[in-house]
């Protein structure tokens, strides 16, 4: 069972209480962008085997979207944080670097 702590309401939620989104920290491209930028934003995914940043919604709880850092190979959870940030918080990055010294970064 995957368990993520909702950073808003503090509930440690089972995956059945959550709704998965997709890759986090995507730069949004809208009107005025090139076709390539829009396609990449819409469809291209880093899809790492390892550290992954992703969006989740506490669907059967407070209903809010939050972000999580998780390993897609081992299912280890590094942490969760509010969605109102433009990049992962330093404490999450530090925790990942400690656990995965050869990690190449989130971009």
């Amino acid at each position: 069972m995957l368990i993520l702590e909702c950073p808003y309401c503090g509930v440690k939620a089972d995956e059945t209480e959550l709704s998965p989104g997709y890759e986090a920290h995507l730069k949004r491209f809208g009107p005025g962008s090139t076709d390539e930028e829009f396609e990449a934003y819409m469809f291209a995914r880093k899809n790492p085997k390892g550290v992954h940043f992703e969006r989740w919604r506490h669907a059967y709880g407070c209903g809010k979207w939050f972000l999580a850092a998780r390993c897609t190979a081992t299912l280890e959870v590094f942490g969760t944080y509010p969605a109102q940030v433009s990049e992962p918080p330093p404490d999450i990055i530090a925790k990942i670097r400690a656990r995965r010294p050869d990690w190449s970064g989130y971009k």
Partner: protein
Amino acid sequence: MIVRTRPADCHTNLFMSGARGFGGRGNSMRYSGLRVITEGLFGNKGWTPAWRDPAPKAEYDVVIIGGGGHGLSTAYYLARNHGITNVAVLEKGHLGSGNIGRNTTIVRANYFLPGNSEFYSHSLKLWEGLEAELNYNVMHSQRGLINLFHSDGQRDAFVRRGNAMINQGDDAVLLDQEGVREHLPYLDFEQTRFPIYGGLLHPRGGTARHDAVAWGYARGADRRGVDLIQNCEVTGIDIQGGVVRGVQTTRGAIRAKKVGIIVAGRSSQVAAMAGMRLPVESHVLQAFVTEGLKPVIDHVISFGMGHFYISQSDKGGLVFGGDLDFYASYAARGNLPMVEHVMEAGMTLMPMIGRAKVLRSWGGIMDMTPDGSPVIDKTHVEGLFIDCGWNYGGFKAVPASGWSMAHLMATGESHEVARKFRLERFATGHLLDEEGTGSQHNLH
């Protein structure tokens, strides 16, 4: 309308004896029933390995990365259809050790979108001649596929799908509740939550023996001169001036004029070696097998209200599965909520299986695309091709995927049944969303 019942358990393992042996050169042997009997009389001492175990050469015309079903069939059809035999298939583990080695083995041609419809129709026709073609018993069993529906709206959708299948030249029969009852008397028709209104029968749908498909293509490719190189992981793709020159592997550098990436759930990692970011997210799909039972389920059945499908293998195990775990994963194991959901769906549909004991379960890594349809295309690098994004429908596509990928790699043009499987559809917006569920990887 033809509905075939399950064939009696047959001792087809004899046909495959030696298929996993390595090292010999006994690859000219033809398999036949007479040969099985003769070998049986003399202690089965005459079988020889089904393919060679060559060391990689320094250079090939074509290198295929990935020795699974699609990679092996691509190599086979490169040799058979295009006379290109200076080919190596590089596999990081052993042949057929990925999704072709573990899947729910369903073969069908019941798609309705133009682009998908002709492709899977072509694939089913190849399946129907595959055993004679490969001289290998892939145990293709056209036992009939029944997709159940549970509402008027769902019936309408299946009528439309059935008409599309017939227009494509394939077969479809709409069954009302009594029609379904004749085939599947053991379903729970009286349930109030999801009453069974009827089903769409696809008589030519069925199953095949998954390992045998890989082994049959491997043997066929080897016999035509293809080198199947195992325990050889690709670690880099050599590109100079926008042209592919070869690959780096754990067994040294191999030069190649053309390279094909056919690696399913690991597509994003291998494509990244060529600087590509694919419209793919990898997810885990679980499936389950029970202990062996006497023949009880004659068809392939899918439940229209929960994502659940089931058939019975020739060994007697009930083989069934459901949906993705919904979040990105390379873990090759799933979590319990989806296990519970699949079991619930099965019990809702056919309570009679409740006493069967689950023998094993597994999670395979699926290369999910945003529209649920695959990619067979060139890349921005000249000479580098990619065949990926099979979601969880790759098994039935193995023959036509290899056929189309081989055509593309040999001629530089998309095969006519795979024209819509181009990467450019994500730029132009011409998505092939068969299920109509929207453009997120985990929704298909």
